[in-house]
């Protein structure tokens, strides 16, 4: 099987180890991953801030870079939701581009979704270690409808004790530009999230969106808490 890997701008710039973990996972499951070198960002920062024109420029680039019929797999529920739901809307006035966006909507997958629904990785006997809790990020859960997949993966891992997080699907306060525009609220929400994480007693917190995890990591660091913050790709790849 062949896929195209969309790393996302956050993973590309800040967390290359997440991309590397994905490559490791793909190798393990016999998937040939192509990395279109011209990829940049899905355009969500502009779109969410109300700059549809600038977002359209980014989206058009994305559509041309990820050409073909292969599934596109990305380590972000938020970016997957952007491509799946908002690209068709961005090109509502342009039938040709809209058709392209609509066809792409059918082949973009968030990583855990692809691992569970397409590769059935949950039955492959993956292993890990320690006590892990999971933050359910907003766009992954509510826009993309991916609720169970990450849990299925984590609970299938041998030697891993999974502890559910209280209010796991409450926003961590990242919100993209929100963290910059309303930092006081953003930090207050991150602190609440950190409380929930500490309450689980887990040694690792994971999730499917680097943005949220970055925000959570900062809140944990501020309180000097040793809980590890890792993307689900890392958690899964470490046990291979």
């Amino acid at each position: 099987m062949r896929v195209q890997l969309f790393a996302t701008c956050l993973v590309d710039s800040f967390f290359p180890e997440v991309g590397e973990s994905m490559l490791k996972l793909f190798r393990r499951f016999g998937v040939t991953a192509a990395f279109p070198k011209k990829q940049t960002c899905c355009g969500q920062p502009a779109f969410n801030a109300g700059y549809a024109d600038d977002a359209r420029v980014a989206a058009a680039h994305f559509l041309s870079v990820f050409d073909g019929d292969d599934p596109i797999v990305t380590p972000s529920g938020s970016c997957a939701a952007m491509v799946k739901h908002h690209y068709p809307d961005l090109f509502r006035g342009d039938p040709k581009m809209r058709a392209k966006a609509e066809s792409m909507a059918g082949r973009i997958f968030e990583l855990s979704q692809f691992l569970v629904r397409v590769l059935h990785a949950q039955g492959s006997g993956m292993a890990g270690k320690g006590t892990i809790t999971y933050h359910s990020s907003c766009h992954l859960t509510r826009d993309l409808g991916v609720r169970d997949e990450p849990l299925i993966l984590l609970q299938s891992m041998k030697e891993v004790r999974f502890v559910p997080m209280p209010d796991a699907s409450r926003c961590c306060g990242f919100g993209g530009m929100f963290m910059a525009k309303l930092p006081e609220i953003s930090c207050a929400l991150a602190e609440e999230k950190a409380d929930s994480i500490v309450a689980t007693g887990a040694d690792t917190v994971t999730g499917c969106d680097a943005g949220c995890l970055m925000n959570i990591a900062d809140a944990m660091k501020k309180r000097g808490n040793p809980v590890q913050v890792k993307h689900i790709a890392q958690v899964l790849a470490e046990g291979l």
Partner: protein
Amino acid sequence: MSDVQTSLTFRANAARAIKDAPLRSAMRQAADTFGTKRADAFAPVADLEALRDKASAIRLQVLDRLQEYVDTFAFQATKAGATVHRARDAGSAREIIAKILKDRNARTVVKGKSMVSEEIHLNAHLEKQGMEALETDLGEYIIQLVGETPSHIIVPAIHKNRQQVGRLFAEKLGVEYTEDPQALTKIARKALREKFLAADAGLSGANFAAAASGSLVLFTNEGNGRMVTTIPPLHIAILSLEKMIPSLADLPTFIRLLPRSATGQSITSYVSVITGTRKPGEATGAKELHIVLLDNGRSEILSGECREILKCIRCGACMNVCPVYRTVGGHSYGWTYPGPMGIVLTTLLTGMAQSHPLVDATTLCGACVEVCPVRIPLVDLFLKLRERRVREGFSKPMEKQGMRVFGKAAASPSLFSAGQFLSRTFWPLVRAFGGKDVAGRLPRPAKVPFHRRVP
């Protein structure tokens, strides 16, 4: 409150609320309680999703032919003995109500809960004319005593704890301090009882207006709504145009949805249907009923891209689950309606110039969309309003430039790569420039980005 909180100062309002420990804990506790109660109340409702579809469809049907429903309602209500007034804006609504009262020498008005009366600042206007407007909903009564406005559309005093209420009653009503909720309720009940009996007029809002019969529908819990609308000889009801439902046959759908969404009750203690005035042989009911139908910007919203906000039935569920609202409370939003529905309604009703910072008051998490009983696509509306802010020129010039550069870089891999290199190289500068609140919370970009590590 000493400082004026407006929607324009949202960030400062919120920052102040975040430091207010009693407010934070009261908000958290109340929002959690209502969230849990709502979930429990809907658990046995097997057809919830179909019910939401149906409610949404009814509300859309009303919006599609709103003028027609309003006209039918006015005709039928008049036939049933009411006098119907149309108010284009807040000012004319205030004038209409003040004149009705003045013409009848009415000086004391007991009020049931009405957010529309808050929207038009009715109390202050009546007081200026030398009349007394007394809130009789317990929560409204509390905040009227403090001199505040509601911070939740269903639970006006959500931000107060019982110790604060106990001290307030002791100070303002001269009673002995108690923080026992039952004792406090009794104190308020005693103080209000005489007022009900002596009032010249009762003023209420309405949750719905059934067009086919000209009926007003009120969902209440404390009994004050019923007293206000039946004891005084004169009843004035004020409601905004979009409260229409086609007929009472549509009411069961909303009886199932509204109380569960709002307070987690399967039904409120009272559901009152008022059709016209007291008829011969009837023991209760106002002898005279005036209904004020307020537009105040609704017609304009109706013709725009955000019209679905007019489906709102004011249950407050979106607030209870909103991470931002539960952290900063209702006053931070600076106007009558807070939380997710409030962001949209405030921006549309007061105009972008008065409220543009509010459209940032959401992480776009979508928790509100998940609970809205009439399926208002709130996140889509936030995004539309953000686009409108850019179109109308209320976004910061630097942000606008930045986004243009972002768009260009996103379409040019080499430019994008250069940007990454520059931000890593000048990271200390970025941090200094971006401040500890923003860049200080990000890790330093990787030395070698992923795209240069891929074989």
